[in-house]
């Protein structure tokens, strides 16, 4: 391969083959989950006919029986757990994302325009915050939320944790976008008599939309996927989807079709984001390490 490192000439079919293999490796397990969720348990267990089976929506109907507008014929007893968890997950993830973005943008704007700390300090703090594993927050958050704040089992309790967990990263990523907003624009708006809040909402916000998209996806993803703290803080009625999945995992006799349907439903929003906004996600991911 000595000469081929020259860029722009890599039309070698071997590279395409490699890429196909990589795609299969990355997608395979996820596709497997989705196909399993479309199978009846008989098909999951059977040895033969792995590729040929009748896709069925039964597992999804079992999981979603509470939210469906009709009563699926094969469901004898409708377990409302998942429908409720889905609603909880949506509320918690959406509200945390909205609050994190609003507070984060304001703070990032203040940090850039009014120069509180240097960029180095912020990067360092972000890294330090990123260091804190959720497991480390488990004990204190459980203690404080239960005994001091009385927020255990409530939406506000878990939303507060998620906002705090995500703020450092959001502030840091938005900073790099706000720095690029030309200050002349803001000055012009100020000349026209706009107050600081008007400048912020009418001039700055519209210009940093890509940054906001990246920040929103990262925050939503963490709030939507998080298990440990949700498990410790939430009760039967406010539980999120990841918690119900873990609770329904038993040592033996797992109903793979149903649990994979639950898993697929949990995976759908992140998958959609990935295909809609992969550029923003990559920006968010690389911003830290590559630009420094």
């Amino acid at each position: 391969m000595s000469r081929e490192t020259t860029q722009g000439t890599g039309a070698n079919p071997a590279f395409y083959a490699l890429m196909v293999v990589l795609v299969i490796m990355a997608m395979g397990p996820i596709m497997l989950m989705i196909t399993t969720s479309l199978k009846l348990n008989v098909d999951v267990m059977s040895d033969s006919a792995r590729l040929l089976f009748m896709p069925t929506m039964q597992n999804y109907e079992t999981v979603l029986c509470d939210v469906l507008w009709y009563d699926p014929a094969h469901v004898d007893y409708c377990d409302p757990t998942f429908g409720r968890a889905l609603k909880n997950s949506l509320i918690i993830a959406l509200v945390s994302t909205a609050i994190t973005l609003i507070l984060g943008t304001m703070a990032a704007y203040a940090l850039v325009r009014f120069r509180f700390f240097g960029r180095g300090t912020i990067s360092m703090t972000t890294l330090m915050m990123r260091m804190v594993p959720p497991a480390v927050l488990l004990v204190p958050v459980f203690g404080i939320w239960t005994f001091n704040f009385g927020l255990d089992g409530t939406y506000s309790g878990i939303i507060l944790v998620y906002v705090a967990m995500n703020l450092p990263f959001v502030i840091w990523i938005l900073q790099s976008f706000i720095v690029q907003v030309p200050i002349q624009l803001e000055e012009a708006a100020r000349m026209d008599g706009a107050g600081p809040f008007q400048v912020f909402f009418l001039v700055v916000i519209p210009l940093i939309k890509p940054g906001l998209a990246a920040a929103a996806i990262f925050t939503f993803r963490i709030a939507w996927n998080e298990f440990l703290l949700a498990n410790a803080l939430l009760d039967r009625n406010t539980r999120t989807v990841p918690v119900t999945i873990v609770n329904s995992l038993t040592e033996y006799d797992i109903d793979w079709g149903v649990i994979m349907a639950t898993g697929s439903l949990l995976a759908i929003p992140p998958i959609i984001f990935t295909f809609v906004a992969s550029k923003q996600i990559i920006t968010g991911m690389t911003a830290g390490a590559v630009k420094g």
Partner: protein
Amino acid sequence: MNGRRLTPYLFMAPAAFILGVALLYPIAYMIYASFLDWNPSQRIGQAEFVGLRNYTWLLGDASFRESLGVTLKFAFFVVSLEMLIGVGLALLLDRSIRGMTALRTIFILPMMIAPIVVGLIWRYMYHPTVGIFNKTLNAIGVESVPWLSDSFWALTSIIIADVWQWTPFIFILSLAALQSLPRSALEAARIDGATGWQQIWHIKLPLMMPVLIVTCLLRLIDAFKVLEVVLVMTNGGPGLSTEILSLRISRTASEFRELGVAAAMSNYLLLMLMLLTVLMFVYSRVSEARAARIRQAAEES
């Protein structure tokens, strides 16, 4: 005028308040709790102050030491494998091939979906009878592998799952680093007749070093934070063979109801991560200086 001076504080206040209440206060609280003999039914005021007892007790505790060993082993193998494969693939695929954007998009998927779901998928694939691995092995006449029920294989299995999930991260970051390398340095090397390997060893890798170090650090931090995937796949078993530290913390808190000990364990973990971060920072400063020198030398020649 007075109003304008207040503006920055108004913009900062809500975020600062939340970070204080929900991040800094809990961490301070955790440090305090690590000196207490505290169980979840007590308020923190009722817990007995025991000084450093939790810390010294942990050092002598065989299961904690085993869990620490598992964590270090896991982090070491995961990060080195991912760096090796990720950087290797980036070097190999750093050329203008059509479909690169699509590949990167698909590569993000494993990182975006919930760790719980990743654990679920892999647990299914490792399943002794319905799992795809054993089915395939049996189909070609090889005996089943005890993926999750043997202590050696269980650790290997969680390492494989993590490599699947996170190698793309390293790949995407190294690729971005490669594509932002100064063209002039590579051009100069090519004109001087450097072979592909020489270019990689003497130009590309040293110039990428600062990014690689940060990437490595980020991955290392995350490797110490892994919990959900392992929880779903093995729940730490068989025995303690996959009980990584964060899993042990959560079990100490919720199953053994020893909040003080769990807090002390959290502190050990945090100290370890801090040490790592500082080391990496120092090292990255040094290698940044080196990269700058190489870049300068390359541009002069």
